[in-house]
């Protein structure tokens, strides 16, 4: 009896405390001295290397905090591991908005991972800012998902740039395409066809692979049999490595185009250089591994920040483009938050994110202007082409547009 009375009393007490504590908060995740931002990224599993994006963001936020924060508020950053598994990304995102009470979800990584949480974030009216995926839907479908905005150039436009380049520069092109069979790979293929235009028939073979398969060597062998002289590698992470290895092993010598998200120097440096040399890709961020930027102010800033604030980073990380990519997004987020005003709300930050004109981001190529409007939600729409030679990427040509429509 005594226990039951005690339990009832305890329950009543807890409920009383809870209801007293539940004063209406103006904006979750914003206090008088702090703004709380969250991400879900792969820190384990096959795509763990890309999780360095979040570690780059973390270092940059600490640097900003040391300089006084954003309009007097410090940035608090919570990033959780999803192992590149959309199911865990859902769990993490719910944890971020319900448990951690973040102000906004920012730069979560992966096409499927972001698709999986888009509906619930929009239902909860939580900003899904600067998604780390170039799937066109994140910029295009803003009418249905007003709380979502992308960041990197849309994959479809990237494909189109490669298509246009082939038409202009390679006569009698016969194109083979290796693509990941999801929205990411299919967007690239659709863009490529648009870019080839009347010459779309020059695609002689096109083979998809499943993102959870083990090896793409069979697909590459199949593509080689088509006698193509151009190969599009629209493959992520290890699949891109395997593709280069297979090309080299088969003694095939096509002109290779490799899509931006798997063109990191750290990856390119470890594939057979026989196959890698002369490969073409697009680029929008400064590559810390390229001698081209060795004396660049932005890269120097990047390295000094990472040395000071990059918890547990080593000298190899100083040349890892994923860290730079993270800092580039973080730089844009800080500007967005400043623009959202002294007392940012979720609405005001979405407003700011869709009215950007950011010049001089130190971590992206000179001349790139990050620009958005409510009806054009693709922050980065300018890129340059780059070619791999002597163990490094070198840009060539002028800035080209990757703006949809």
């Amino acid at each position: 009896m005594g226990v039951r009375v005690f339990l009832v009393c305890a329950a009543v007490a807890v409920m009383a405390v809870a209801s007293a504590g539940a004063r209406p908060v103006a904006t979750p995740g914003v206090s008088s001295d702090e703004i709380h931002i969250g991400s879900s990224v792969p820190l384990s599993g096959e795509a763990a290397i890309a999780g360095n994006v979040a570690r780059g963001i973390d270092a940059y936020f600490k640097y900003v905090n040391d300089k006084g924060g954003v309009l007097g508020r410090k940035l608090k950053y919570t990033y959780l591991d999803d192992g590149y598994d959309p199911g865990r990304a859902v769990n993490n995102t719910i944890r971020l908005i319900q448990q951690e009470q973040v102000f906004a979800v920012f730069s979560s990584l992966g096409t499927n991972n972001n698709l999986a949480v888009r509906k619930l974030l929009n239902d909860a009216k939580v900003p899904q800012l600067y998604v780390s995926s170039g799937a066109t839907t994140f910029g295009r479908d803003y009418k249905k998902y007003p709380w979502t905005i992308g960041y990197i150039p849309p994959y479809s436009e990237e494909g189109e740039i490669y298509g246009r380049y082939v038409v202009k520069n390679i006569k009698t092109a016969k194109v083979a395409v290796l693509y990941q069979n999801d929205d990411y790979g299919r967007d690239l293929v659709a863009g490529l066809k648009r870019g080839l235009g009347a010459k779309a028939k020059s695609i002689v073979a096109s083979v998809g692979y499943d993102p959870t398969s083990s090896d793409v060597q069979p697909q590459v062998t199949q593509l080689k049999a088509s006698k193509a002289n151009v190969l599009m590698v629209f493959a992520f992470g290890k699949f891109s490595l395997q593709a280069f290895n297979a090309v080299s092993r088969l003694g095939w010598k096509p002109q290779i185009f490799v899509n931006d998200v798997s063109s990191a120097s750290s990856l390119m440096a470890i594939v057979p250089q026989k196959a890698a040399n002369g490969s073409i890709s697009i680029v929008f961020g400064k590559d810390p591994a390229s001698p081209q930027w060795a004396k660049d102010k932005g890269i120097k800033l990047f390295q000094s920040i990472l040395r000071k604030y990059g918890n547990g980073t080593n000298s190899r990380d100083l040349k890892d483009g994923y860290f730079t990519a993270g800092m580039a997004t973080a730089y844009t987020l800080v500007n967005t938050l400043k623009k959202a005003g002294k007392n940012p709300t979720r609405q005001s930050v979405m407003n700011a994110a869709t009215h950007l004109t950011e010049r001089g981001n130190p971590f992206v190529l000179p001349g790139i202007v990050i620009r958005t409007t409510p009806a054009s939600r693709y922050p980065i729409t300018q890129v340059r082409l780059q070619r791999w030679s002597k163990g490094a990427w070198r840009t060539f040509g002028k800035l080209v547009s990757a703006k949809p429509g």
Partner: protein
Amino acid sequence: MRARLWPELSAFAAVAVVVALLPRFVSDFRARELAIVGMYFIALLGLSILTGFNGQISLGHGAFMAIGGYTTAILSVDGFFGHQLRDLWTIPIAGLVAGIAGLVVGIPALRLSGLYLALITFGIAVSFPQLPKEFDHFFGGTTGKILDLAKPPFGLGTTTNNWIYYLTWGIALVLLVAAWLLVRGKTGRAFKAIRDSEVAAVSAGISLPRYKTLAFGISAFYAGVAGSLYAIANAYVNPDVFPIILSVYLVVGLAVGGLDSLFGMIAGAALIYFLQNHADTVARWINHLPALSLDPKQPGIPSVVFGIVLIVVMVLLPTGAGGLVRKLFGLLTSRLYTRS
């Protein structure tokens, strides 16, 4: 007989009271986490019936969870002949579909046992995730199916997470009682007889095909219900939501819980949830030990922690949580007997 009943009845009453009161003491998000523990608990109950009581090994229960999850997702997103079902009503259907799949798998299981059965079921775990990719129009491919977030029905003024919590644990308690009645009754005795010696069981007139497939079917039904709840809680399914490793985790939970201890499965379920989602917290605890420093955010650290904790738990508790409780009860009762 009555003497052996009271510990289990009082344990059940204790669990029920804790389950009913817990959400008042924890945050809304914790309620959600506890609900997911409840889902693993349901799946582990099924696995315990199959492995702990019937002696058949399954490394493929993640696939039955996937069948349940996909059944719920498809029925509530695409509907049945254009008529979308409320998530709540898809749960029993998901259980039945998975249960039928379990019966079908149970048939080859008749001819195989031990390692070979483990391999067959593992084959199912490996191949099932390929189905949604192959038939992506029906299953949604790797992009998956996005459900509406669950809302409390009948105008109940509670949060989504509390609703999912009570729904899950309500079902879990019912299924716990059902499992308990099953293993205590005639069927359960037949299961255990087969586990202990197939030859002896057959000579006692027990039909092997009947009971072995039945165990598979019941076990898969439990997994299907768990998968269905999992889909509702996450409002999302794709092949990666039910990865191959999930089947392995379930076996881990079974071992930690203690094969044939129904209550022990709660511990197993809690451990697999905790290690999957809070390995970074454990890494932070480990940092308090002298001469150790782990960066919980460093790639790979959560997996390493998962492995270490698992090894430590299995070394300390070779018979699982159930074995530990039984040992404690053994001490208690033997002392009672000696006193009287």
